[in-house]
């Protein structure tokens, strides 16, 4: 196929693609997202390929390796279209049976269906499963069936029609449409996207740049990765529309080095888009020109901050600078630059295609559209969920996430990455949107949602984030560089039983200084995890300081391991596995831990089948 010379040609091409494939054509979609891949979905895909060949079925059914379906907990996932039947935890050995029963005879193999651990109910179709039922998948809609390496797949499903529309609309109309939609930046700060574009487009300059921020650094967040890996063209299409709007002719995608597959998929997609004239000179026959380069990050969290990111693309250390001037006025190589996050870009084609009115009806008054969250930690259904803004935390954690595993009690949910906050049970009915989360002392961030149960120590969590941030501080501002180290020391004192009555007042005073005197958001928000846990989990701090006790049984210096005389059956497993030889006892008799030798590694508790190892 040669490059399209007009929007008309693109639409004709789609018609041709559609006429050659029936909408009712059957497809087996094997999830090849990071989670399922780690669980062996690539070898599953190969097994399907050879099994279909063996049964001479390759001309009857399509086999695709898709992006992340979101339900990582139950991977590897295999989805059948158009029936919508979902098989979960599929193993290599299941493939022959699936092909002979389900593909050939249309029979369901019940053992592979999802079974709700809470009530034992089995579900045949993906859309009936509570995890999917309560979601509203717009950005992730195509992830379950699209081959991310095929531009034809994307175009067939309506891809690049928003771009065709945008070429007709021109800059001013595009910007006003994005403004009317109410779209706010999905990277965390929630700045109105349309306004940002407008500022950049109005700044006098001979050259403008555009950047896609894919430096998804928040631990526990992987939505950008999944969008890039599963549907790279949606991001590229958003970027081209943005380029038309602000008049940029060069764009960059700045991807974390930890995401090699995302880089690979993007490279393929960019080549395809260039070949079809969607990138390069005279896009769809118009006067516009635009192309995109990929820059890999170097493993620095601070590079998610826009001015540090720009420094990094320029080949320097990723150190933030004072703003204003904002990048929209003075950015990459000193030129006006518009930066948006992956998820923001992926929302743009939806808005242009379906209209701002449609988009603005989804969500809350101040936060429109959907948001993707990565629901992780101590939750039954770990995975990627997309919900309308304003859904309550309770619905996300319990209805979609299926609650806490192992019958344990919910304790907190942490949102907003290392700079976010922890919300307790009493805040579970908070509607999740940009403004409400801020009011509660947390923040939206890029959408990581980490669920914690009664066995998570909130002081340890606060210390964890400080450890992370002190090592990621770029070192530019003294208050952040030194202050975070000292704060971490104070938290460590609490965790190790050295704290006293002065510790918390000292933490509060230091936190205030770091917050008010740091230049960029890393330092300004670094104290949020400490402040929010102090606000909601004060008694847990006091138990550490006043009683020398860690109620969750996490802080090593404050706990001891022992063996319950009633439960121990003398199986010798703990004795064999103890790395320090601290366990003694004879077969079928009670075992004892020598407290002087014990290093509190917890291996005995992990290996015990009787739950006889106690932590106090």
């Amino acid at each position, binding site marked *: 196929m040669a490059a399209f010379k007009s929007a008309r040609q693109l639409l004709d091409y789609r018609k041709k693609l559609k006429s050659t494939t029936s909408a009712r054509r059957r497809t087996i979609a094997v999830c090849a997202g990071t989670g399922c891949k*780690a669980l062996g979905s690539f070898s599953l895909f190969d097994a399907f390929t050879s099994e279909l060949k063996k049964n001479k079925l390759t001309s009857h059914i399509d086999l695709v390796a898709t992006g992340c379906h979101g339900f990582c907990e139950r991977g590897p996932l295999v989805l059948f279209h158009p029936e919508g039947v979902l098989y979960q935890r599929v193993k290599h050995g299941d493939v022959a049976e699936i092909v002979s029963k389900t593909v050939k005879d249309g029979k369901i193999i019940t053992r592979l269906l999802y079974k709700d651990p809470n009530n034992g109910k089995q579900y045949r179709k993906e859309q009936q499963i509570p995890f999917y039922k309560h979601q509203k998948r717009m950005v992730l809609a195509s992830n379950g069936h699209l081959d991310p390496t095929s531009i034809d797949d994307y175009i067939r499903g309506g891809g690049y029609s928003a771009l065709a529309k945008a070429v007709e609309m021109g800059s001013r109309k595009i910007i006003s449409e994005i403004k009317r939609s109410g779209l706010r930046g999905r990277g965390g700060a929630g700045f109105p996207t349309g306004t940002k574009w407008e500022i950049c487009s109005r700044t006098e300059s001979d050259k403008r740049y555009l950047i896609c921020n894919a430096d998804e650094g928040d631990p526990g967040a992987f939505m950008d990765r999944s969008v890039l890996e599963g549907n790279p063209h949606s991001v590229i299409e958003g970027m081209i529309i943005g380029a038309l709007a602000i008049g940029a002719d060069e764009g960059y995608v700045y991807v974390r080095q930890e995401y090699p597959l995302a880089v690979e998929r993007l490279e393929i997609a960019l080549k395809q888009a260039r070949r079809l004239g969607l990138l390069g000179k005279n896009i769809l026959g118009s006067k516009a020109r635009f192309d995109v380069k990929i820059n890999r990050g170097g493993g620095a969290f601070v590079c998610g901050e826009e001015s540090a990111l720009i420094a990094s693309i320029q080949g320097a250390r*990723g150190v933030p600078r004072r703003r204003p001037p904002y990048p929209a006025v003075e950015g990459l190589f000193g030129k006006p630059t518009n930066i948006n996050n992956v998820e923001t870009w992926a929302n743009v084609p939806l808005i242009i295609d379906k209209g701002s009115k449609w988009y603005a009806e989804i969500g809350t008054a101040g936060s429109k559209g959907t948001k993707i969250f990565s629901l992780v930690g101590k939750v039954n259904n770990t995975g990627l969920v997309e919900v309308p803004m304003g859904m309550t935390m309770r619905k996300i954690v319990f209805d979609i996430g299926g609650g806490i595993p192992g019958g344990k009690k919910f304790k907190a949910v942490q949102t907003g990455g290392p700079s976010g906050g922890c919300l307790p049970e009493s805040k579970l009915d908070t509607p999740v949107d940009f403004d409400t989360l801020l009011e509660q002392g947390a923040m939206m961030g890029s959408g990581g949602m980490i669920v914690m149960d009664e066995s998570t120590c909130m002081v340890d969590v606060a210390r964890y984030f400080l450890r992370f941030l002190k090592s990621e501080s770029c070192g530019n501002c003294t208050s952040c560089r030194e202050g975070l180290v000292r704060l971490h020391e104070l938290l460590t004192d609490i965790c190790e039983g050295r704290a006293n009555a002065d510790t918390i007042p000292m933490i509060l005073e230091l936190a205030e200084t770091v917050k008010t005197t740091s230049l960029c958001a890393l330092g300004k928000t670094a104290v949020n995890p400490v402040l929010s846990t102090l606000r909601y989990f004060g008694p847990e701090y006091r138990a550490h300081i006043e009683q020398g006790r860690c109620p969750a049984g996490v802080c090593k210096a404050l706990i001891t391991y022992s063996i319950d005389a009633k439960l121990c059956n003398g199986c010798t497993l703990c004795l064999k596995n103890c790395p320090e030889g601290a366990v003694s006892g004879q077969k079928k008799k009670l075992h004892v831990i020598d407290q002087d030798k014990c290093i509190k590694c917890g291996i005995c508790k*992990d290996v015990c089948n009787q739950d006889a190892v106690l932590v106090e």
Partner: protein
Amino acid sequence: MTEAPAIKTDSVRKILANYPPNDGSALVNLLHDIQAAFRYLPQKALQMTARHVGLSPARVFEVATFYEGFHLKPRGEHICTVCMGTACHVRGAPRLLEQLERDLEISAGQTTADLKFTLEEVNCVGACALGPLVIIDGNYNGNMTSARLTRLVGGMQKKGKK
């Protein structure tokens, strides 16, 4: 100061040729490619890179030391990376890291004397559903337990000794 080990400068030249000269913005990408070829950033390669992109060796060194992803010392044959992301942390990742430190007799960030193993931490690889996660030579091993980790690494140690 030990002498820098000799490296194949031809392969550095090949990598440099993929990027136009005197373009500072190629620096981070270039360092990635060199590290992919050598598993670390040899001093000689850094000097050649500096000449190619038209920056002073000091600037290149500054960038190479700023980013956690770059290594200036030779790394082991096997790279064990423990994910220390939040989801992995609440599911017990710190204990797995301590176990590896004990078993390999090195601290995080170090390489064993026989250059067999390097132990590293990563902030999050976005495979949170599988936490705790240990990546060994690029393979993601999810839902890791101390017993499985002992088997995995123990097996590799034995193989190395034969």
